[in-house]
């Protein structure tokens, strides 16, 4: 890859100092700025309360690190709030809604990429358009529907609504993937007498595994991170997901429990951050979507 990009836009021309001034220094500032909020989250999560709320002008003030790291905020999080339950809920909801979306997306993506049938173009466009419909437009009517079906305050209210933004995305991503797989491969299998379903499951899916993985990882992170629907549909503390639980249970009126808040934010970010770091390539593939398709 270095070769490709290396000759690429070319290195900065001219003297060494120019390279530093115009390239390395801005880039470093940029990376530091990007990561600083996470660093601040980390420091705050381990900082004892006495130090958190200490005036700036105090002599022993060490703003950017702490000399007395403490676990008290994490202990508080698990003892005084239902953080464990929130983690479980988030995981459960994310997994089931991802599975639903992958199931629908695989079938729809395959039929759009491979099968010829009337209205295929219109249906495909329709699915694409739904991708642009934001939660802001839907949360009020969906809240009414959730209430009417008596799903309010249950994980199912989210499991059923998250696929609304996952299915269009998964379908388009997989459709792009299926198109890159040569048709001949399945045709061989079909000549040998396999049904289309069998050819799809045994020949196409294994080849499309990277695509399915990208779609799955992306869908999982999106569900894990979702905030609007979770805020609107869930009320009782034991039903909440991590993002909503942390926000609504650790901010009481004007009182912010900054230590536990940051500890919760840290723990809630770690699963997606880990997942991301293991699958960066898939993630980026998911993000740039069906470019190749």
């Amino acid at each position, binding site marked *: 890859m270095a070769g490709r990009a290396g000759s690429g836009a070319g290195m900065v021309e001219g003297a060494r100092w120019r390279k530093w001034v115009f390239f390395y220094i801005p880039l470093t500032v940029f990376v530091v700025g990007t990561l600083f909020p996470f660093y601040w989250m980390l420091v705050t999560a381990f900082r004892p309360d006495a130090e958190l709320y200490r005036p700036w002008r105090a002599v022993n003030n060490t703003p950017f690190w702490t000399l007395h790291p403490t676990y008290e905020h994490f202990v508080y999080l698990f003892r005084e709030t239902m953080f464990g339950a929130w983690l479980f809920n988030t995981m459960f909801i994310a997994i089931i809604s991802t599975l639903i979306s992958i199931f629908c997306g695989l079938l*729809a993506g395959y039929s759009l990429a491979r099968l010829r049938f009337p209205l295929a173009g219109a249906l495909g466009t329709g699915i694409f358009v739904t991708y642009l*419909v*934001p*939660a802001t437009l839907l949360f009020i009517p969906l809240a009414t529907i959730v209430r009417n079906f008596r799903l309010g305050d249950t994980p199912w209210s989210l499991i059923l609504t998250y696929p609304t933004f996952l299915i269009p995305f998964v379908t388009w991503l997989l459709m792009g993937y299926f198109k890159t797989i040569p048709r001949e491969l399945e045709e061989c299998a079909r000549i040998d007498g396999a049904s289309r379903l069998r050819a799809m499951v045994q020949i196409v899916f294994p080849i499309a595994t990277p695509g399915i993985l990208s779609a799955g990882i992306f869908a999982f992170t999106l569900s894990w991170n979702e905030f609007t629907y979770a805020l609107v549909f869930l009320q009782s503390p034991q039903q909440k997901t991590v993002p909503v639980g942390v926000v609504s249970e650790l901010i009481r009126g004007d009182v912010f429990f900054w230590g536990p808040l940051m500890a919760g934010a840290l723990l809630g970010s770690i699963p997606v951050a880990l997942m991301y770091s293991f699958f960066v390539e898939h993630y980026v593939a998911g*993000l740039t979507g069906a470019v190749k398709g």
Partner: protein
Amino acid sequence: MTQELATPSAVPIPTAAAGVRSGWGRESIQGFIWIAPAFLYLVFFIAYPFVMSMYLSLSSARVGSPENHFVGLLNYQRLFQDPVFWQTVRNSFVFTIGSELIRLIIGLPLAFALNRSFKGKRIVQGVILIPFVIPIALSALAWKWMFDSLYSVINWMLMHAGLIEYPWQWLGEPGLAMSAVIILNVWRGFPFSAVILLAGLTAVPQEVIEAAKIDGAGPLRRFHYVVVPIIRPILFVGLLYSIVFSFTDFSAVWLLTQGGPYNTTHVFGTYAYNIGINAGDIGMGAAITLFIFPLLAFIVIVMLRLLRRE
């Protein structure tokens, strides 16, 4: 919601469309059956709620009240007389345009930088996407703490650098609050812009650039005449997505300011939430969200045309 995600950019229109046959053979039936789960799902959970939203906006629906009358355009009339609503409209545009401009200004040089090779490139590439990956609700909390009225680390740094003389009330002063929300939105969304731009840049064939170089074109002219025409489609699609996400944002603004101080940061999402969910006035809330629709429809049409043309 965190629908601020990926883009099936440069989405191709299904090839099936090109070769539609009128036959209703086995393949057609199979096609319909396989696409049915996704299609019905989206009809039930997107199309139906959308239609319902239009009905709700014409009704007097309230949370917890069984009575639900058709009231015509009353909700819209009330909105038009509501100064906070007009402020919300203005804020939404300021928020969106501000965020997109800054993202582009930061994203473009960044994408160019990432398009070269240098030591640690993979790490930088991995790192810049993190704000986009982490739940917005959680990273917004970190920002809220950084903007805190008493313990703001940003103020601390600015004061020690001698740039400000007294601690700024980032979330308490109208103009500053809007900048704070824009900063958060830019920080969270620029990885998206950079990755899209980078995807566009890597598509520019090196030979073409070299050829322009040999012909004596400087960096600016190369950019304008060679790079821009090639990356324009993907740039445009990415920008449209980005606009949709900013314009319809709820989480970032709600978490940082809840629309305050004095409604100066309310955008459509947060105002609709306040009225439709907090105050329980479903009809009026639905009417507010529907004002997103014209811009959304416009963007969808532009995008579909763009994709068709390719």
